[in-house]
């Protein structure tokens, strides 16, 4: 296949909305949405602040199978309020993960896939968003005892705030080149620490530190895929079949403390420094 025909056969995953993404990953005909938009379980907090709500509060929960395995998908719609999590959307994700863990305790091996496009807490629902994210963290760690929780950051919003911590708790993470993964959004860092520290308008700079390619090269994520539905689907399937990782990334405190101890924290950091520090032992 030539490059141009390969390109023609590619279907962008990034361009899909949350519901389409969930459908694209599940085995054909198995998609079943819970709390679908027609049930109109919407944010009780947005309208009263003059913000138009969305019928599904920006989160799609779908059950189905992926390569025959029972799975629940939680997909965040990045186009609605920047993918921010409020009370309802947050409770949908936390509740779905809690039920998946319960399934496992009853012998049903439900896995979870999180499609993360989010700036984190929705500020109009501040403390309820934060509380929901703490619940999501708790539920990931619980479910992860039984079956893998796979996080996908495809782009274009990226994954930030408290949900970047959720990403860090996943058994496996998959990113594309369009993805960014970091705790703090560029503007907030610039605001808090100054332009010298972080230039939020310098896109190449931001991607070089927090983009999918760098996160993969530094071992902070497990898989790097093209923005292609078939490829992402295949890799998510492989990760689900792989079972639990030998060691979760977020349980390696000793290793990361040793690595940080070796770093000269005085000079400002370069992307290559992180690659050497975190992946040096591999080469």
């Amino acid at each position, binding site marked *: 296949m030539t490059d141009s025909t390969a390109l023609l056969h590619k279907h962008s995953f990034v361009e899909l909305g949350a519901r389409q993404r969930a459908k694209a990953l599940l085995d054909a005909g198995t998609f079943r949405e819970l709390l679908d938009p027609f049930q109109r379980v919407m944010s009780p907090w947005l309208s009263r602040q003059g913000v138009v709500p969305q019928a599904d509060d920006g989160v799609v929960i779908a*059950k189905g199978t992926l390569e025959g395995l029972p799975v629940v998908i939680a997909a965040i719609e990045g186009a609605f309020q920047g993918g921010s999590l409020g009370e309802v959307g947050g409770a949908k994700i936390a509740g779905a993960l809690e039920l998946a863990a319960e399934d496992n305790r009853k012998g049903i091996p439900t896995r979870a896939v999180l499609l993360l496009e989010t700036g984190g807490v929705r500020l109009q629902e501040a403390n309820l968003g934060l509380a929901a994210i703490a619940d999501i963290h708790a539920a990931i760690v619980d479910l992860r005892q039984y079956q893998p929780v796979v996080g996908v950051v495809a782009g274009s919003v990226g994954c930030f705030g408290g949900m970047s911590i959720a990403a860090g708790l996943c058994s496996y993470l998959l990113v594309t080149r369009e993805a960014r993964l*970091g705790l703090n959004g560029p503007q907030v860092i610039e605001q808090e620490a100054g332009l010298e520290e972080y230039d939020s308008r310098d896109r190449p700079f931001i991607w070089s530190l927090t983009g999918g390619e760098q996160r993969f090269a530094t071992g902070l994520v497990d898989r790097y895929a093209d923005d292609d539905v078939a490829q992402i689907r295949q890799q998510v399937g492989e990760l689900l079949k792989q079972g639990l990782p030998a060691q979760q990334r977020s349980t390696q405190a000793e290793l990361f403390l040793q690595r940080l101890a070796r770093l000269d924290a005085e000079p400002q950091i370069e992307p290559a420094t992180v690659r050497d520090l975190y992946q040096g032992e591999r080469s």
Partner: protein
Amino acid sequence: MSSYSLRGLSWFNALAADALPVVGLPASLKVADGLLGDQPVRFIAVVADPDNRFVRARNGEVGLLEGWGLAKAVDEVIAADQDKPQKRALIAIVDVPSQAYGRREEALGIHQALAGAADSYARARLAGHAVIGLLVGKAMSGAFLAHGYQANRLIALRDPGVMVHAMGKASAARVTLRSVEELETLAASVPPMAYDIDSYASLGLLWETLAVQQIEQPTAADLARVSECLAQAIDDVARNGTDLSGRLGAAHRAASSKVRQLLREQW
């Protein structure tokens, strides 16, 4: 007056006066093993370290070393008590102004460091440890998610300086395109947006709020009161379990319960 809060340190020193300090952790962490009544506990606080190697984490922020350090401090307890029938309680003393904002932090994966801390606290709970969060100052955003929010019982001291929030007022105003005054007016009428601890309590996330005489420098009576409350919280966990279900049920958090109920019906 210091540019950073000393509350966390003061409460740690008071509560852990007779406890045995744990070594081998970053200087920004105060960790000690002691007793509350007759219960063995580990006290954990994040404090300001003006000499922190990471310059953006010198005022008590939770950064890379703090996140992974907290994880280590908690993992030690899980491992040490693995085969013991009685699990040591973890007391997280919370006075954290924010996560660390910086280039080094993002580049080195501060999100992963905070995940490390949240992971360890959550695993401690699952292993049967009581995890109690004692809020004596700010409990902000990612910093609180890493240190305190995985507790199965949260106790807050009633004081204007004790606040839980996703973002400081100035930043929140900018992000939501409002003036600080507009934000304050709005926040007063929307409980989850408010900055005071009583509004936060109305969300049902706290197990208890306590008034003290001198929050900056606890008196003997303050210490006795808080110690007793912590001991009660540990007993409550022993009786009612280590999950987070106790946080649900408040009227201002009704949608969180409703969503779970509907999901269960449709599962």
